């Protein structure tokens, strides 16, 4: 099997509809729907245990969904799993490589399993080793590689057959910032070939930097999705206010007219994060906040981040 070029203009590479999975009494994934188009990176953002890996496992056929459907290039996955698997490449969260074998041997092996001939696998492995800047260590056993190098080989093993759809399950977890940047750069370059990528992560910065569209998932439910600016707009514009004060006994619900002017994103004992409702002047908003019946120690105005969106959706920070 060589790579499978598809004519998929106007068609989703991946369409997931109402995917659900339950383990015992735990609803791991609850009616998740999403879509990945060619040349797009779709980020699935959520904390550990949110259901990201379970979703990817169902998409690539490792797990059978309890309900819902997975369409790969317009065809239901389970109608022809082998055909769907030819189209996709999967990078698991855990390193899934043979540490005793060299980087080149690993790449060639997974390439052969993906259907490449011996010669194709050799040539493609050489290409990938260059692209992943591992050519000088190609013959060394993977066991001697650094964490970042292993991650790159782990990524490369899914790319031998030039998949149209790439499923990346937290591919940068546990590596240093420089190695992470290298991998992110490499992934960004894949878009040029029209590859559609589903990228799961719990790093906000990665999702913000890399993804065209982002889905926020928590407790198995897709809470919101859209571009970064679309998600920011959910907070009511492009700025949020952070008030620092003693909010132990404060009751915003009792403050007159407060809820007509502000949406509370988060309230803690020391902090109140709010977004203004409607297109209002920031200075006017600031004045309103300083008039609140608490003694404000500090007020900060900032652009809303994905974390703020997550906060607003779940009531807790993504890093908690």
């Amino acid at each position: 099997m060589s790579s499978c070029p598809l004519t998929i203009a106007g068609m989703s590479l991946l369409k997931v509809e109402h995917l659900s999975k339950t383990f015992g009494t735990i609803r791991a994934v609850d009616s998740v729907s999403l879509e990945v188009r060619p040349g797009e990176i779709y980020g699935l953002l959520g904390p550990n245990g949110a259901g990201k890996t379970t979703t990817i496992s169902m998409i690539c056929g490792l797990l059978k969904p309890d309900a819902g459907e997975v369409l790969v290039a317009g065809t239901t996955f389970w109608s022809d799993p082998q055909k769907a698997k030819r189209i996709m490449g999967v990078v698991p969260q855990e390193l899934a490589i043979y540490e005793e074998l060299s980087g080149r041997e690993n790449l060639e092996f997974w390439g052969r399993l993906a259907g490449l001939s011996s010669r194709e696998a050799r040539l493609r492995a050489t290409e990938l080793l260059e692209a992943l800047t591992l050519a000088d260590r190609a013959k060394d056993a993977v066991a001697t590689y650094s964490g970042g190098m292993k991650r790159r080989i782990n990524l490369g093993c899914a790319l031998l057959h030039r998949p149209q759809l790439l499923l990346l399950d937290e591919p940068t977890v546990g590596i240093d910032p420089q190695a992470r940047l290298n991998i992110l750069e490499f992934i960004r370059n894949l878009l040029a070939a029209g590859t559609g990528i589903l990228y799961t992560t719990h790093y906000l910065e990665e999702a913000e930097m890399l993804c065209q569209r982002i889905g926020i998932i928590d407790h198995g439910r897709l809470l919101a999705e859209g571009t970064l600016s679309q998600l920011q707009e959910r907070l009511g514009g492009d700025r949020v206010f952070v008030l620092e004060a003693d909010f132990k006994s404060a009751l915003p619900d009792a403050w007159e007219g407060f809820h007509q002017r502000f949406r509370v994103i988060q309230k803690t004992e020391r902090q109140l994060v709010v977004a203004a409702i409607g297109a209002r002047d920031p200075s006017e908003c600031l004045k309103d906040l300083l008039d609140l019946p608490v003694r404000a120690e500090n007020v900060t105005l900032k652009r809303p981040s994905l974390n703020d969106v997550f906060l607003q959706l779940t009531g807790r920070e993504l890093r908690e």
Partner: protein
Amino acid sequence: MLRVLLAKDLRHAVRNPLPWIINLIVPLSMTLLVGLIFGRHADSGALGRIRFAVVDEDKSLLGDLLRGVTNQAKGGRHFDPVFMGREAAMREIDADKISAVLIIPANFMSNYLRAREPVSLELIKNPAESVNPAVLEELLGVVATGLNAISHNFRSKFPEWRTGLEGSGDYHQAFFFIERTGAKLMMTPKYKNYINPPLVSYEKEPPADASTSAAPAKAGGSQSDAISGVFSYLLIGFSGMFLLFIAGSAMSDLYRELRQHTLERYQTLRDSLAPFLASKAVFGVVMLLLCAAIMLGGGGLIFHIHWRRPLPLMALTFGYACFMAALFAVFVALMPDERRAAVLNNLAAMFMGLAGGVFPPELLPAFLRQHITPFLPSYWFVTTARNLQDGGMDVAWGWAAFKFAALGAALIALAAMLLRRRFQSGLRA
């Protein structure tokens, strides 16, 4: 596909040979250990002299003949019989001074020659010993075979013999009968074939029913053959069990693939797990064949065992290896926990080995012997291999080997299905 997977496993084994070395050292050390214990005796052609008591309650000519046979010529080199009363003999066996007690009951010869009712020789084995009593049991089987053969074919002469042999016993007349019987046997090809090698033997249970029983063939009547037969009997049984242990260990490599998530990654590329499992099974079979060669080949050299039908034995072992590798692949698919699986694998191997052929089936509890042992593949292997070694030409070894291989293929398919279901239900290593 299979070639690619095998090449990967071969590379892995070359880079990390420790599991292979350990798996090969186990049978090697076992064979060497047994060889060190018994092998030096085998250099002189047999074990040391076997001391046993003969309790002759019959006081007939037969006892005297037996005394002569065991004391003189070749018999004297291998056996050290002591003649004594029953109580003294029991004291000796309790004191672990003798290997067994052979009791010739009162009126044994008289009843035998009258051929009215079954007669029995009694052998009490020293439970503290294993090999020597087994050798004596085998030899007693040869004696019973001879008595059976004579009873079947010369019964019409028994009244004449009885007249000559009973009472005080006339040795001249006895030897005249023996000479005449021998000459008749040698002149008659049918009889000659019948006793050399003897195609009838005796039943160990009930013991030594000399006049009526006939049963599993034990070819070769000489003492060294009997000793070699005991070792081959034991070696086949132990090999059947140890190969199960090694199969469990060899197939545990699948747990490494699960731990490393490589089996999971494989499944993201290929829909069927069967080729992956088959490649592991092929590797397991190679390891098992090497171990079998060490145990059966090495053991054969140490104990001077002449494997009578090596090619059928190899084919049978190959089939058995296929079956075992596939069986433990199913175990991996059924048991997600590696440490728990290791314990259960060993228990399963021990049960199948002990109940399936290490011990003679007649020593097993009746329920096990009747309802479980016959259905154990280890028993099929051990009995077929022993029958091959016993010289049976009509042993269905081809069918047995095919049956094992076919079962192996079916079990690989089952393991692939179970693992797939396990993945799909969300279980991981």
